[in-house]
């Protein structure tokens, strides 16, 4: 019985050196002995330590019948520290059993530490504990592990989903993914997806959400990125899920692809509805699904937006009137030709580029001009002047001519000025007082 003497030394090591809380369960699982034997081992250890005058504390399990408040006999089971053992024993009407529950160096504060002492050990050996118990139940045979590998991925999915949210849909989804994998109609895409899944699941960390994400990443990128560099696209889509702001990068690259090759774009459109279906079917949790769908919608939206803007860009390049006219703008003639109506038009408009100049806009501005009029008076008047953005001087003819027709029309101006709305283009805001200052 080598183990007999060894255990005492082991216990000493565990308790004194490592400061562990050694419970009978932990001891039984580690030394592969019956639980009752483990309890006895703990007891002898405690006795030995007492003889050696080394301080260890022990908790005891006591069970018995005791009388409750209502007067009925209650079957009580408690774990109590050594100090309370005697008093507790006396409070019971009958004692059924007492044994050592745990041994530790320092006193225990609460029950949580006792619970946690066994926790990991029990979890690891969940299916082996029954060997060391006193009670055997023949009916309780767990179904073997052998059944699990063939449907491993599906099983993993169900495991993942099973622990996350509500039940029934997940059962369907896993069985459907199996069916899909078997179908082979959309074989290529699914083959990719399957390998990606395997990759993804291998890569996945402890956190199951990451696993879900990786799998959905795998499925969504399968169709789209099969021609391009898969990793990049995956990253792009991974960024997608991780960071909403990164979205624009991903669709833009996809946009570029679309423009390059129409066929490719068509194929993507083809795969997209299929993908949608697959995405829906192969979802793990509702979160994942809504993610995909909402992201797809976002992608679609952005794509449309991008396509709109791209149209604009294309338009911009061609010699066509500027695409952003103000809605209230009336078709104003070119300032090169002198007009009499020009002062009436008080709205500022972005003039189309006349000479096909790019990025240069000719503007008509209301500018106060000071000059000598026919009576020899200094007059300051606001006059429409055309200006190009490189701030060249306004052309002389329109300036000279416009004041002349403007002066006889000065009075006329007064009335139309009343009616016409205040100029929106002038840098200074016209206030009502300016109206009165003229007189």
């Amino acid at each position, binding site marked *: 019985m080598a183990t007999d003497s060894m255990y005492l030394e082991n216990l000493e090591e565990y308790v004194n050196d490592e400061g562990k809380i050694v419970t009978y369960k932990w001891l039984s699982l580690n030394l592969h002995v*019956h639980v009752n034997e483990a309890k006895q081992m703990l007891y002898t250890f405690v006795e030995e330590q007492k003889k050696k005058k080394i301080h260890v504390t022990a908790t005891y*399990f006591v069970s018995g019948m*005791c009388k409750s408040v209502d007067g009925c006999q209650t079957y009580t089971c408690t774990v109590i520290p050594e100090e309370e053992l005697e008093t507790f024993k006396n409070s019971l009407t009958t004692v059924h*059993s*007492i044994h050592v529950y745990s041994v530790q160096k320092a006193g225990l504060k609460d029950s949580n530490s006792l619970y946690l002492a066994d926790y990991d050990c029990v979890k690891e050996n969940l299916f082996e504990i029954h060997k060391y118990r006193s009670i055997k*139940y023949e009916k309780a045979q767990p179904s073997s592990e052998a059944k699990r590998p063939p449907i491993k991925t599906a099983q993993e999915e169900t495991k993942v989903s099973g622990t996350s*949210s509500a039940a029934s849909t997940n059962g369907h989804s896993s069985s459907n993914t199996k069916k899909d994998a078997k179908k082979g109609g959309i074989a290529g895409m699914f083959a990719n997806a399957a390998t990606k899944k395997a990759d993804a699941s291998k890569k996945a960390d402890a956190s199951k959400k990451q696993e879900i994400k990786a799998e959905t990443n795998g499925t969504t990128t399968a169709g789209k990125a099969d021609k391009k560099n898969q990793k990049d696209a995956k990253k792009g889509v991974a960024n997608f899920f991780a960071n909403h702001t990164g979205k624009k990068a991903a669709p833009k690259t996809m946009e570029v692809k679309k423009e390059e090759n129409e066929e490719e774009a068509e194929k993507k459109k083809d795969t997209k509805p299929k993908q949608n279906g697959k995405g829906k079917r192969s979802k793990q949790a509702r*979160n994942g699904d809504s993610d995909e769908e909402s992201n797809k919608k976002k992608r679609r939206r952005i794509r449309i937006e991008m396509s709109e803007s791209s149209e604009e860009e294309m338009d911009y390049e061609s010699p066509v009137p500027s695409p952003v006219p103000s809605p209230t703008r009336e078709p104003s003639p070119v300032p090169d030709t002198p007009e009499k109506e020009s002062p009436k038009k008080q709205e500022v408009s972005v003039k189309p580029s006349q000479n096909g100049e790019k990025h240069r806009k000719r503007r008509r501005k209301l500018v106060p001009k000071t000059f000598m009029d026919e009576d020899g008076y200094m007059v300051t008047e606001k006059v429409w002047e055309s200006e190009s953005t490189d701030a060249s001087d306004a052309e002389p003819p329109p300036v000279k001519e416009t004041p002349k027709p403007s002066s006889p029309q000065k009075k006329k101006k007064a009335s139309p000025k009343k009616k016409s709305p205040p100029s929106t283009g002038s840098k200074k805001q016209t206030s009502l007082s300016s109206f009165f200052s003229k007189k």
Partner: protein
Amino acid sequence: MFEKKGGNHPDDLLSKPSQTHKACERQSGNFSDCSDRFLLKDKTFSRQYAHLYAERLWEVRPKVEASARKKWVPYTVHTMRLTHTSVYIPLGKDIVIRKLHELKSDETCVVIGTLFKHMELKPSILQEISEEHNLMPQPVRTKYVDESDKLYLEDELQRIILMGDLDVQTSVTGVIIAVYGKEPEDDQGKFHVEKYCFQMLSDQVPRPVIQNDKYLVLISGLEIGSNEEQIFSLQLFVDMVTGMLGNSEEQSHCAEICRVIVAGNSLSSSTQDKDSLQKAKYLSKKTAAGSVDAVKTLDDVFTQLASSVDVDLMPGEYDPANYTLPQQPLHKCMFPEASRYPTFHTVTNPYDFKVEGVRFLGTSGQAVQDIVKYSTNEEPLDILEKTLEWGHLAPTAPDTLGCYPFYKEDPFIINDCPHVLFAGNMTKFDSKVFKGCGGQEVLLVSVPRFSQTSTAVMVNLRTQDCVPMQFAAPSTMEPNR
């Protein structure tokens, strides 16, 4: 109840280790499930509840009629002059049973119908909608009873107010009742009740005699996932039942436990985070639901239990099952490890089964709690007794308790008299034996919430005794004073 077998000393484990430790076999009881009527075959919610009430009346009426005829034989009383004893002489004719539309004034007769309790404070959807009109919303109360509550008797066509000996406060809506009395000439529209009766409890199938002690453990209200969860006490319970704790004598005693029933609320109400339903999906994408960890813990617990004993898991109010009664079994994929054992079963709420010839019927407590809210009854055992008398497990369904709109059946009617009637998630443990008028004996058990009391209930199948098992952790609980 627990006699010491052999001469084993309680502290025989306080000794040197020995190699010989016997292992005993777990007892298994003959089990048969009778809950088939609680499983929903089809789930069409497009029906109205009128069918359920009609079916209830249709099914129970003949039984109530038989009970009324038996009880209320019309008689006259004749007092003997010399001995001063009263003699009841039957008149030889039957009682008159009338439908409400056939009622004649001042005729003493019997009417059978459904009881309806009109309550002022009962929450009504119309009142909730009145919030739109800036009226005060109804506060949530623990009890909705009021002095002004009235009782109506409804049959298929009409309803009438009941006055008289029938206690309004302890009655609830949905019970099929026979009332004996009359509608007075001067007080039309009201029925004066002299006597009343319900369906008679059917005869009990006698329990077979069991040779050895066999136990069934009831536990409820584990409420994992809350701050108050007693995880250590739960672990003690599991270790006890699976035969790890205690000395060999105690362990052989625990080997006589043939089944464990978990009667609801294994998850706590705090895992049902209502805010998560309102919150936008994109905000809560990365946060796992509170119930996930709780279910994982439960899976471990049930794996340990199922490896040693048959376990039946009933859903409760806070469990991830449907809201309406009857609650369907929890899906096994929530317990992947425990499901590997054939001894782990998920069952309906209410649950009806037979072990070793002893018929058990029980719920996770929703019906009882609903009756507490809508009547002045407080004691769970009183309510359980009343449900036996009324012959219906959940009379307030579908009025105030959510219920599936059944069509041609009402599974809550108690047709076969059980031997044990239990309700889970009660505030404290209690038990008593109810003796019916036909000689039936039913053990009524109120199973307390484990998270509050750390107590489970052990029922002895041989003697119909009931013992609470309490598990205490160090420095948290003191022994019962």
